[in-house]
Every structure is written in C-alpha cells, then in structure tokens.
C-alpha cells in the first residue's frame, strides 16, 4: 500500500466497516467497540498522514486517480491540500467522539446505528478529499443518507418534520449544484477539479453557491437548521454543526471561490452581506433562545456567517482565519452539543427555565462547559479568538464596516453564551436538576476531554493551522492558482 492510498483508505475503511457491521450479527457490545475501534483507527491514519504531509510544498498531496467513466471525463480522483487535511482531521476526531458517545449511551439497534455513523464518516471524509466534481457531489449527497436515518430513527418527537426539512432543503441546493456542475464540466470538458480551468459564468457560480449556502448555512437559507438541531440525537447534531456544515464552507473555498474568480468578485458584496446577516441574525436569535441547543444552533449559524465573511473577504488573513475558524468551531460545537446531550441525559431537558445550578457539586461538567463556552465566545487568547481576529482583520481590509459588524456580533456572542452557561450551571437549582444527577462519568470525560484538549492546544498554537493551510502560506495566490 503506497502512501497516496492513505486518502482512499480514510474514505473506504469506515464504509467497509459499516458493511461488515451490517452483515455480521455481532452483539451490541462487539458492534460498538468495533465501531469505536475503526474510528480511532481513522484518527491514527490521519495522524500518520499529517506527519507525512509536506506543508512547505504547494499543490495536491496523497493524491490518487483512477478511472470512473472516461466517457464524460469523470474520474475517481482524491487528494488533500493543507486545509483539506485539517478538515479531514476535524472530521475523524469529531466522528470518533460522537461514535464513542453513541456507544456510551447505548443506542438502540446498534448495528444499524454504528453502521450508519461509520458510513457518515467515510462520506464526509470523501467530501473533503474528492478532487473530481461528480465524486465530490456523490459524497456530498451520500452524507445525507445516513443523516436522514440517524435523525429520523434516533431523533426526538418532532423528528419526522425535521428530517424532511433537512433533506429537502439540502437537496434543493445540491440538485441545483448538480445542474451547475454538469453544465460546468461539459463546458470545460472535464470534471476534474484540478485540471478544470476557471469559468466566468455567473449562473454556474450561483448554482454551486446555492448548495453551499444552504449547507453552511447562511442567513435566509437556514430554515432546516433549528428544527434539525433540536430533534436530532445530540451526537448527530454535533456532527451536523461541527463537521457537515463545514462541507458547505469548504465547497465555497474549494470550488466557488477557486474556480469562479470573476463571479466571486462580482457577487462579493452580496455574499458578504448574507454572511454578515447570518452573523448578526444568528447571534440575535441565539440571544433569545430558551434552550441550550437553540443557543448553540443559532450560534453555529452565526459562525458559518463569520467563516463565509473570511472566505469572501478575499484576503490572505481572511482565508487563513476562515480555515482556522472552521476547525476551531468544529471542535467547539461538537463538544458543546455532546455536553448538551450529557446535560439532557441528567436533567431530561435543555430548557433554561428548568435547568440551573448544575455547577454546584459537579465540577467536571461545570469546568468543561465553562471552558468550551468561554472559548466559543472567542475570549482573547483562545483558538476561536485567533480565527475570528484573522477573519475580521481580513474583512477589515475589504471594508471597515464588515469588521465593525463582526465585532458587534462578537459582543452579542458574549451575551448569549454567558446567558447559556449561567442558565445551565448557575443561580438557583433548576426544577429538573435533581441531587441524583451525577457529575460526568469517566466514559463521558474520555469523550469530551480530548476535544477540549485539542482545542486548548490549538489555542496555544493557532499558527499550527493558520500557517499550514495553504501552499507557502500564500492563500490568495493559492486561490488564484485554483490550488493547482
């Protein structure tokens, strides 16, 4: 097995494991441990890959190309750039934590559940490594299938409506993207993302952007978000907001911005406006949400806006910051939703009205929730701060008011996140917080602490990502060269 096949391995190992799990009649315990093992293996492979990655060199690495069908010049082409490497890392780490959570809470119908989780892992990694438009699209869609069933089967009471919304919204976007990519691919004569020359067609650009804007999501297109995040099982919500949403912003960077320079600059103001709208709107709504998940859900809407702001600022600072922020926020919201799930398991609710006073005598949950919450509101010195600082500095270079809006939104972020933290941890004990509600157990700590650890390590050295995402740390050139 050559080095370059690591990428394919990252994609197909979990999918193969999913098939194995579906086929073999293993016990609940065996199934769960197999799944956890595989997802840890993924992390291991990724670390190995990151260790071998040559950040000095630009261009695609660990790439592998095989025929899919030559008729229309569609190929199986995978590979990684610096930023895709980080996103893949985010995926495998977050998925490992979420699979572990599923194992810890002992989901019903384990074989179906873990199979789907692993399938989701593979598909998501696929999105980040695919270097062929159709392959990218295939993985982009394939992510939805397990999501649909995971939310629909293991979700809350309102899951039916939620799943339908999730699927129809996202498919509406991605189908337009299908049309766009057909037109684009046939026009330029290849579907290979590396070979394909840039295009100036605004319609095609909009087709792609529509999909990404819904996936991310940005302001008016987030109709699917609140319900889904509320109804899905916590670990699935964690994946959704932590990882899946990043597929949208990744697409903006890899396809929309890189392949459509002219339309990007033509629609820049519009998109920046949408992003800013998402940022402010999400913060405002998070500020009034009455439940923990609601706050985190709307805050991740705001975060998507922020990331898009960085991406479309078109400045090196903005791009670096956006990648950093993608990873940081991915870790943050994954751990926040997992913690929300753990709180729900103890108090059977995440309504602030019924919660409160959890900190008293529960140092672990208090410390972790406090830490992650504080990081998420971008307290200076944290990884999120680094990302947001770069993004806003980049946006400032585009025009000062974008940075001003963003800065205002960050103040709002402080307001809603502190409100959420206090609502759960502080003041009088909530009516549903009983004394029997224990502190986090070792198993749960084993899930969240690593995430928080990574987050803190990232806070100590954000340059690790911001400096190693683009070839020779020259994002704008890399984009202009379409990551050749």
């Amino acid at each position, binding site marked *: 097995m050559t080095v370059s096949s690591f990428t394919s391995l990252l994609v197909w190992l979990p999918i193969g494991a999913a098939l194995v799990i579906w086929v073999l009649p293993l016990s609940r315990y065996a199934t769960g441990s197999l799944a956890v093992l595989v997802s840890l293996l993924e992390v291991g492979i990724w670390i190995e890959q990151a260790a071998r990655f040559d950040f000095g060199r630009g261009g695609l690495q660990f790439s592998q190309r095989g025929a899919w069908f030559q008729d229309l010049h569609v190929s199986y082409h995978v590979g990684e750039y610096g930023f895709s490497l980080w996103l893949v890392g985010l995926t495998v780490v977050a998925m490992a934590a979420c699979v572990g959570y599923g194992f810890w809470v002992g989901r019903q119908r384990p074989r179906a559940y873990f199979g789907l989780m692993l399938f989701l892992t593979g598909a998501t990694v696929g999105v980040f490594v695919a270097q062929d438009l159709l392959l990218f699209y295939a993985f982009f869609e394939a992510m939805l299938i397990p999501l649909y069933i995971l939310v629909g089967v293991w979700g809350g009471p309102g899951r039916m409506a939620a799943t339908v919304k999730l699927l129809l919204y996202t498919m509406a976007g991605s189908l337009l993207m299908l049309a766009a990519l057909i037109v684009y691919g046939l026009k330029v004569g290849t579907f290979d993302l590396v070979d394909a020359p840039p295009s100036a067609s605004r319609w095609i650009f909009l087709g792609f952007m529509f999909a990404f804007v819904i996936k991310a999501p940005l302001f008016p297109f987030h*109709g699917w978000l*609140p319900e889904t995040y509320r109804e899905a099982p916590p670990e699935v919500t964690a994946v959704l907001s932590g990882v899946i949403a990043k597929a949208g912003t990744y697409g903006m960077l890899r396809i929309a911005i890189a392949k459509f320079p002219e339309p990007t600059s033509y629609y820049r103001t519009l998109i920046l406006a949408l992003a800013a709208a998402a940022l402010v709107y999400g913060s405002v*709504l998070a*500020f009034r949400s009455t439940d923990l998940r609601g706050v985190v859900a709307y805050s991740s809407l705001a975060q998507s806006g922020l990331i898009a702001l960085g991406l479309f600022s078109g400045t090196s600072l903005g791009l670096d910051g956006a990648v950093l922020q993608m990873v940081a926020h991915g870790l943050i919201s994954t751990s926040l939703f997992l913690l929300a799930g753990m709180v729900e398991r103890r108090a059977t609710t995440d309504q602030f009205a019924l919660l409160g006073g959890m900190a*008293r005598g529960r140092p672990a949950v208090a410390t972790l929730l406090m830490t992650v919450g504080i990081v998420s509101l971008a*307290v*200076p010195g944290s990884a999120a701060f680094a990302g947001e600082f770069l993004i806003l500095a980049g946006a400032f270079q585009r025009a000062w008011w974008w940075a001003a809006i963003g800065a205002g939104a960050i103040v709002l972020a*402080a307001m809603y996140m502190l409100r959420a933290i206090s609502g759960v941890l502080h003041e009088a004990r909530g009516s549903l917080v009983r004394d029997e509600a224990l502190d986090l157990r070792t198993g749960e700590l084993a899930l969240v602490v690593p995430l928080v650890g990574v987050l803190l390590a990232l806070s100590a050295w954000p*340059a690790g990502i911001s400096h190693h995402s683009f070839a020779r740390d020259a994002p704008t050139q890399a984009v202009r060269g379409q990551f050749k």
Partner: protein
Amino acid sequence: MIAGAWLCLLAPLGGALLITLCGTRLPRRGAAWLSTLSVFVAFAGAVWSFFGLRAHGSEHGSVSTAWTWLQSGSFRPGLSVLVDPLSTMMMLIVAGVGGLIVLYSIGYMDGDDEERRYFVYMSLFVFSMLLLVEGGNLLLLLAGWGLVGLSSYLLIGFWHDRPTAVAAAKKAFVMNAFGDTTMALAFFVLIAHSHSLDYATSFTTAGHLPQTTVDLVALGLLGGAAAKSAQIPLHTWLPDAMEGPTPVSALIHAATMVTAGVYLIARTHPIFEQARTIELIAAGMGALTLLVAGLVALVQTDIKRVIAYSTMSQIGYMFLGAGIGSYANGMFHLMTHAFFKALLFMAAGVAIHAVAGEQDIRKLSGVGTYLPWTRRAFLAGALALVGLPPFAGFFSKDSIIAAALHAHWYGVILWVVALAGTFLTGLYTFRLYFLVFPGEPTAFVREHHHAHGGKEGPWTMLLPVGVLAVLSVIGGWLQFSPLWHPLTNWLEPVARTLGVAEPTSWQEGLSSGLAVALGLAGIAVAYLVYGRGRVAVPRLPGVQRALEHKLYFDEAYDALFYRPAASLAAWTRRDFEEPVILAAGPDLGEAAFDAGRGLRRVQTGLLRTYVLFLGAGMAVVAIVFLVVR
C-alpha cells in the same frame, strides 16, 4: 532577566493548572498555599527581572519570543514577553500586591466549600494580568486584556448561586468585551497598514498615518482602557462587581486590573501623542469620572461600594495624569493607589469578615472598637487616599494635580476639577471611616463579633494588612517630584513625560497646598457631620435621589441598549424567523401537494377517462405535428 520574566508569567499558570488537574486529590489548604506560593514565585521572578534590567541599564527593554503564536502571511505575532521598565514595574506591583492578597484570601475564604476553584481563578487572574503587562506585542496585550476580563467574570460570579453575583459578572464581562472589541478594531487598522502588531512597528506606523485614522486608532484603544478602568461612560460594572469576595475586589477591582487602562495609555503613548485630541479626551474623561464618582460615593451605604467609587475616582486621577502626558506620575499614583486601596479593601474585609459578611455601613458602625489594629490600618489607608503628607497618596496625587496646572488652558480646568476631587475624597472617605469604625458598637456588631470569637482575624489576613499599611505610609516617599524623582527617570526610556506636563516648582507648591487644605476641609466636614453629628446632612432630596441612583446610568443603558436588543430579538423570532424562514419550505411543499390532489381527482378510475386522455393526447400531438411539420 528574561528567564525571570518567563518564570513570573508561567508560575501562576502552572499553579492554576496544577490545582485544576489535582482536583480533590489536593486538600483545600494545599490548593490555597500552592496558589499563594505560585504568586510569590512570580513575584520573585519579577524581582529577578527587575534587577536584571537594572544591571543591563534600563534603556533597552528586551523581547524574547517563545514561538510564533499566530501567523498568516507576513502577519506573525509571536508569543513573547517584553521586559522593560514599564513592564517590570507593573510586574512588581501585580505580583507583589497580588501575592499579599492571595495570602489574605487564605484566611478570608477559609471554610468556603469551593476554595479550590477560588484559588484556581486567582492564579489564573494573576497569570492573565502578567500576560497583559508582559505581552511583547499588542495582540498578546489584547489576549491578557481579555483573560483578565474573563477571570474577573469568574471571580465576580464566584458565588454563582447568587443571581445578583451572576448578573454582575455578566455585566462586567460584556462591558469589557465591548472594550476589547474597540481595541481589536484599532488593531485592525494597524494591521491593515503595517501587517504587524509589534509595539515598535505599530508606533512608527502610527507616525505616518493620516490624522483621522490615528485618531480612530487611539479612540479604539481609549475605549478599551475606559471599559477596563471603569471610566465614564463605561463604569457601571465596577460597583456591581463588589458582589465578588472582598479579596477579589481588592486585587482586581482596586489594585491591578482596573488600572490597566492607565498602563495601556502609558504603554501606547506614542500613538496617543499622535492623536493629542483623544489623549486630552482621556484626561477629561478622568476628570469627569473622579468628580462624579466622588459625588456618588457620598451617598452609598455599602462599605465596598463606597471604596469602589473611590477607586473609580482615583483612576480618574491617573487618567488625568496620563492624559495630559505625565505618564510617570500616572504610574506612580497607580502604584501607591494599589497599596492603599488594597489596604482599604482588606481592612474593610476584616471588618466584614468579623461580622459574618455584613456590608451595610449603618449596621457596621462601631466595629472599630473590636478591631483596633484594623481601625488603625484603615485610617492609614484613608489618609493616604485623601493625600495628606506624609502618606503615599500625597506624593503621587499632588504631582498629577500640579502637572495639570501646567498644561495650557484646559489644564487649568482639569486642575480645578482635580482639586474639587480632593475635597470630595476627604469627605466620602472619612464619612465612611466615622460611620464604621469609631463610636458605640451596634447590637448587631456585638452579637456577630462574639459569635465570631472575638479575635481580630487569622494572621494570614492581618499580615498582608500590616504590610500594606506600612507601604501606604512610606510607599510614596519613593518620589517627591520637586526634589527627587527616580521613578520618572526609571520610566524615562519607555514613557517620557511630555513637556507640557512638567510643572514648575511654584505650581507644585500651590497645588500641594491647596490639595492638602481641601483634603483636610473634607475631613473636617465629615467629622462635623458624621463624627460628631453637629451638622445635619443638607437636605437636597433631588440630588440625593439622583446620586443614590448613581445618576441613572444603569437605567439609561437598560433603556438604550439591553431592552431594544432583547425586544428586537423577540420580534425577530416571533415575526420573522417562525412565520417566514421556518414556514417557507412547508408552504412550497403544500403547493406541490395541492397539485398532486388535483391530479388525483383526474384519475377517476373510469376506463373511458383513460382512453379519453390517450385519444386526446394523440389528437393534440397530431395537431401540433400537422401545424408545425
């Protein structure tokens, strides 16, 4: 010396992490002592780097970078510490006073069931404060700036089951976040022009920026400074912050954090000097604050709140000094203020501790009879605060006032205000003193004190009080502007005093005389009104109500910012998010469903309908073909 700086920076952090990770395996006492130790180690580091710097000669401050913290293209701020006169001075103050206060907390917090968390937060705060003062570039300064805000949030809200405490903590954090934001915006300007946040680069950049731009930068910095230092109009969080434990108030909200604004102005004075207008606004802001705070302090009934307002007013003095350009005097007053204000808080803390946490001065009166040493210490602090010779305040405050007099016409205005301030200081300080310490103890005091066991307090509390009492007596002798000024010289290379702020000797004399006289006048009035009760408090109900409501700042902010934001959010959810965004998809779906039902009606099940559609379809196709061909 660099090693000393790193030691100073990292020791408290290490202490915090160690206590966190050990958790319950570490006994409470152990946690307390570990934290204290870490801070004293930091102090040792500070001393080390101080003498190191002395050895090198104070001119060249030196920077050492651990690693590039954040990097994007040519923008690469490192994780670095800066050792120069200004930072070493701050290091000494922070670590020294901090160490004493942490030691004090051992006694004060004894028996609280979350002591460990308290000491983690304390160490974390000291680390953040040191990061703020040692940070080798503006980004690290901002990082420390935010982290002290964070730890002050954590400590104000330490007793998190008190809603008032939690609310106060949030208020403090959000206001400081606003300050951070304006600073960040200022930094964005610098980055946009120089791709760097190093002090040197930024200052040179500020040199050749257009005037408006540099004004904006300075304004942003001033926003941060004002928020942190509780200057009008961003001051409302400080009185509420008194919800925290008293040592916290002493450390954060008197000695160190709140004075960071002054440090910021001194540190970035090149930028401020490019934007003289803004700098003068800072001075004016200080003057306004010292006046208003002094007035409000007159009517407060909570012992800690009175001291808090006096803190605001003293910081007003510092802003005034730094604003008109005599940075050294500002810093000098910062130091002495650290001594005597910490002393006042801790003495008050002893009193409060002695009567089981009661803070209302009307109930406290007469407590001094049981706490003779505390009473004397408090008196020393009070005199230092009023600024009577030979107490510390006299030296630092009067030189600021004098400097004001020297600075052009506006200086004169500031001078007048500052003098008025001294009168108020004397008045409210001794109002407090006379109400609390002397006189017959109230029944309340008596019973609680006996319950308390009759002792004045554990030595861990008394020792720091004593040390600080001494310091607030002699601390000021370090510099007497007309005759000797080692501090000014020491700070010369970093923060040279502007020419406009170099008073002549007659100005010095005049200001000092007036200041002392007015201070004494204030004390006298206080004595007559509160000590002897000869004179009744003048009846000015309107003014009193206004002052008791702290001039309605909170109400105004509530009406201007919080309520509109909240109702906007509520409106958005109710009238936009739910009906429009969340309903859009389902509505479209419903339309499709209606179409489907329509088709369903056509599907009658009658054979002839089906044949009809086949025939009709054929006919239509045929017509089209015949016509088009």
